[in-house]
């Protein structure tokens, strides 16, 4: 029986999530802890920014001195004189100009070649791998943050464990046993939360899930404040609004451990130049506003922001001025305590796989391990089911 079937039938056998949970896959015992355990520093915030569709890393951090790059992309390569140089070999897509101040302050880490072994080229499967931090051949149910928060619970006093802004898909917070809230807009949430009614537990699985969500709502609502007035001007548009909502949630003194925002549209199979430029500008302007607002709150030094996506894109451009699904990618880590600079390794464009994709340099689970071990003080080995070398963008 394959792994997925095993994990599903384990659920059917009534192994309650709280007891065996995701750890059944790793054969370790679960210890339920009520109070904030020693070592877990959830006062430090993680903000995840999902670049949904698979951002093209090669045009994000451009190897502007590499002739192979221009040979592979005669139409869509970023011209050398357009690039914002970060080093003598790599530079940013011009649309990311708003990130430059953060780079100059030494608070922006650029992670090169982030991927994993046996990469999967399907959106759904690959994002599942990233969200559950599984191996390519394993199918896990719970998000990596769900596992972290199950093993080392977030203090009950927090408004929620994690908040998903602007999407109904819980991603890294998928699965049961933790308080994950998905919402679009704080004020609307609070207005509607009056309708929630937690009931007695028991009954079938679907009903239990509903009752739990009702209860989470009531708790989150009792903590969240409606509005904080920021001086920072947030960019217009969906992503800017999501950043603003995230900041309002973060402003609440009760705290949350993680927030995720998503920007969609990166699946640029056709007409990439215009689309990617627009999206990257949104990302950069949004992140600039995020830093500004968090500074207003005095929280920037206690925040790490991490981008992620299901995959990068193929180095060779296709016939429609775009790129197809790829593998290793460029991502950003930024925050008050992030050690800025370039990490990992840029892809060797002369040594591509049969599929036309480069090898990875940093396993994404190492990036997660950095957050788990060094930011929160949660055992990455337990959460990720293995040892992954952290990246030194956090001390």
């Amino acid at each position, binding site marked *: 029986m394959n792994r997925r079937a095993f994990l599903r039938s384990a659920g059917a056998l009534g192994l309650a999530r709280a007891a065996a949970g995701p750890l059944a896959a790793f054969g370790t015992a679960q210890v339920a802890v009520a109070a904030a355990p020693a070592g877990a520093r959830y006062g430090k915030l993680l903000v995840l920014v999902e670049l949904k569709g698979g951002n093209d890393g090669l045009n994000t951090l451009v190897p502007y001195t590499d002739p192979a790059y221009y040979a592979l992309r005669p139409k869509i390569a970023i011209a050398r004189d357009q690039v914002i140089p970060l080093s003598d070999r790599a530079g940013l897509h011009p649309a990311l100009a708003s990130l430059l101040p953060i780079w100059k302050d030494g608070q922006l880490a650029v992670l090169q070649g982030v991927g994993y072994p046996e990469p999967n080229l399907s959106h759904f499967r690959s994002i599942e791998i990233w969200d559950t931090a599984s191996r390519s051949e394993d199918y896990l149910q719970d998000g990596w943050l769900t596992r972290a928060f199950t093993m080392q619970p977030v203090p009950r006093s927090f408004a929620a464990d994690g908040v998903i802004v602007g999407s109904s898909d*819980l991603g890294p917070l998928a699965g049961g046993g933790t308080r994950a809230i998905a919402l679009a807009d704080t004020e609307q949430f609070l207005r509607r939360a009056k309708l929630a009614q937690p009931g007695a537990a028991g009954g079938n699985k679907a*009903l239990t899930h509903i009752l739990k969500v009702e209860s989470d709502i009531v708790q989150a609502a009792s903590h969240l404040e409606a509005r904080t007035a920021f001086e920072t001007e947030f960019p217009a548009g969906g992503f800017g609004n999501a950043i603003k909502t995230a900041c309002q949630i973060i402003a609440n003194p009760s705290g949350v451990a993680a927030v995720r925002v998503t920007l969609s549209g990166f699946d640029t199979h056709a007409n990439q130049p215009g689309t990617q430029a627009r999206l990257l500008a949104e990302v950069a302007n949004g992140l600039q506003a995020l830093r500004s607002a968090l500074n207003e709150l005095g929280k920037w030094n206690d925040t790490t922001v991490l981008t992620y996506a299901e995959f990068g894109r193929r180095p060779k451009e296709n016939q429609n001025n775009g790129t197809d699904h790829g593998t290793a990618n460029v991502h950003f880590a930024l925050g008050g305590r992030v050690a800025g600079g370039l990490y990992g390794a840029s892809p060797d464009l002369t040594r591509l796989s049969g599929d036309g994709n480069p090898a990875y340099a940093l396993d994404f689970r190492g990036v997660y391990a950095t957050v788990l071990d060094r930011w929160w003080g949660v055992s990455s080995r337990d959460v990720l089911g293995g040892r992954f070398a952290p990246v030194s963008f956090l001390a």
Partner: protein
Amino acid sequence: MPARFLAAAAALALIAGPAASAPSPMGFDDARHLLVRTGFGPTEAEVRAYAGLTREQAVTKLLRDTRTTAGTPPPDWTAETTPLRYPRPEDATPEERKAFQRLQVRHGLELRAWWVQEMLATPSPLTERMTLFWHNHFVSSQQKVRFARLMYTQNATLRANALGNFGTLLHAASKEPAMLIYLDVAQSRKGQPNENFAREVMELFTLGEGQYTEQDIKEAARAFTGWSLDRDTGQYLFRPGIHDTGVKTVLGRSGRFDGDAVLDVILAQPQTAEYITAKLWREFVSADPDPREVKRIAQVFRGQDYDVKAALRGLLLSDAFWATDNRGTLVKSPVELVVGTLRQLEVAPGSALPFAVASSGMGQNLFSPPNVKGWPGGETWINSNTLLARKQFLDRLARTDDAPLPMAMMAMAGEPLAAQEKATVASQGVQDEDKLRAQRFAQQMDRGLRNVPFDAAQWVARRPGTTPEAKLQAAQALLLPLAPVTADRPHGDVDAVAFVRATLLDPAYQLK
């Protein structure tokens, strides 16, 4: 004898099988369960029409009464045959591009309202449930396809084949112009085959993940070269000049396959029948398909040449479907919640559009599934955001004011601004007139939801039963699949409105 009783007896005579050891009539609860699971939300009368039948007779009747076309006339523009050209930056002004976008938005709204109206009015809810099922299987989204009329023709194709032959449906759905655009099929040519379509056909439409290799995809992609869209006629067109005529090997079979031949190779795999059967199980029976039952029913499905009704019959007559533990264990999708509530409360709104919009707010925007995998469904319908949207909708419905204002009919986002609004834009320097439009639209949808003609007291009074308490019990038995969860409910000498409201807001009402 009352006419109703005669009609029922006649119906029984028509469909009764051999009388030998006649199994007993299913009764109210079973009939309710069957209709809720296969429809949107049955009325008292609909349940009664089935309660006197045996399970087998009921399933036969359900499957016999399906349709292949919608009863509600579609908007006029769906019949247009103008070329499919949309204004590109190179050859159109920003004004023209905006006008095109607004037109498609407006048509898209009319289309959503049309479909919801059909769901509300159809005598065969199963037909619409299956059309919706296939919409979520052969996914395409207006976000990418843009032309609302292509979404319509695809919808019509899905309905025509929804309870027919899956093989026919697969071939037809793969060539729908909406699909060709959504999966970039038209951009696939010999030498540069587009793998996207081949991958989705195997991963999502037929075999499921892990049941094929990357090599199979590459080979299949070659077979699909030449499939394209003629933008002048808006139809599928095969272009032999860009078709790769070489030999391909797909799933162990070799030949000079074209796209249709590859589809047939895939259909020949037992896995295809199992994948579809398992998906139908999750739609109608439970969240955890029983592998042995799925295999058994899949064999019947394939044995009957992929007749969808044969698969449904197997599923709906399985022990798992009727098990008591299985009642009220599936989450209603937003459309089921919205349409089902209106049907059960016997509400006929003047415009269906606010209800399509409400469903979208709960996470199910018809004609715009989030990605190729479709709406994942099940428990994922419920999170803090969506649960509140669902409860707010129900709360408003239950609380409708006694003095309804005249409702704005079909408020269209694409309508030209009224003179007064134009003046507002000019004088107050509102930057984006689209913003004003959007605001006005939202207000009108809001009003649409609040002005629904529902009279709770009247509805309760029409319930069977001779005492007020009996009527409330009957209302609850119709609306809820399980005992209500919330302890402090109004009972006894109570206001019908408060009772209905409490029942709709009970967590159990989210389930079917």
